[in-house]
């Protein structure tokens, strides 16, 4: 089973600050996904990165996949209270079944 380490686990910041969440593994993934989950709801897919070194932007969110496809980062610029939630990374193994492993999650609180 491939393990995904996610850090930090908790983050409380002021509105307007920047932050980065990291997702690391010793194994190679065929793709990696980032989700945001708000209380009382299911995780919502934000982005999928597939190619090593790939960078994707979603408004104030920037996602990067490591060159070796073992790690990823999520950077939020000028955080807003609406960014508050649980951020989960999930890596898909290579191969036909592509089992998905979830990180432990980063609980982000943006204080107005």
């Amino acid at each position, binding site marked *: 089973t491939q393990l995904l380490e996610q850090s930090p686990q908790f983050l409380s910041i002021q509105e307007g600050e920047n932050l980065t969440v990291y997702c690391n593994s010793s194994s190679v993934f065929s793709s990696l*996904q980032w989700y945001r989950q708000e209380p009382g709801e299911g995780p919502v897919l934000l982005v*999928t990165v597939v190619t090593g070194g790939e960078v994707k932007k979603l408004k104030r969110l920037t996602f990067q996949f490591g060159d070796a496809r073992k790690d990823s980062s999520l950077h939020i610029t000028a955080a807003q209270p609406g960014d508050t939630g649980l951020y989960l990374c999930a890596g898909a193994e290579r191969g036909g079944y592509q089992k998905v492993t979830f990180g432990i*999650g980063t609980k982000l609180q943006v204080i107005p």
Partner: protein
Amino acid sequence: SAVISQKPSRDICQRGTSLTIQCQVDSQVTMMFWYRQQPGQSLTLIATANQGSEATYESGFVIDKFPISRPNLTFSTLTVSNMSPEDSSIYLCSARGLAGGPSYEQYFGPGTRLTVT
């Protein structure tokens, strides 16, 4: 993307009873999964629901406790049997492999919040 609905959204059940959770996807999908999540924590995979055959369970989860059905490509049920307070959790249905979409993109239902008293 896929829209996934779950019923019930929440329930409070007595110890020793069973609850069946339904999951409906708005399009055909290759794979369906059931997860458990404690509030604010990550996801634990219970099993993969297979159409036409027995579900594939992860370590620590057994069919007698969590029977799963998947009669077609859009619907699945999870039953939590002989419940105890330790079963109190959020149960999430998930799907992957939409027709015409990437096989690795996974979508989730809103979850069923179960409290066992």
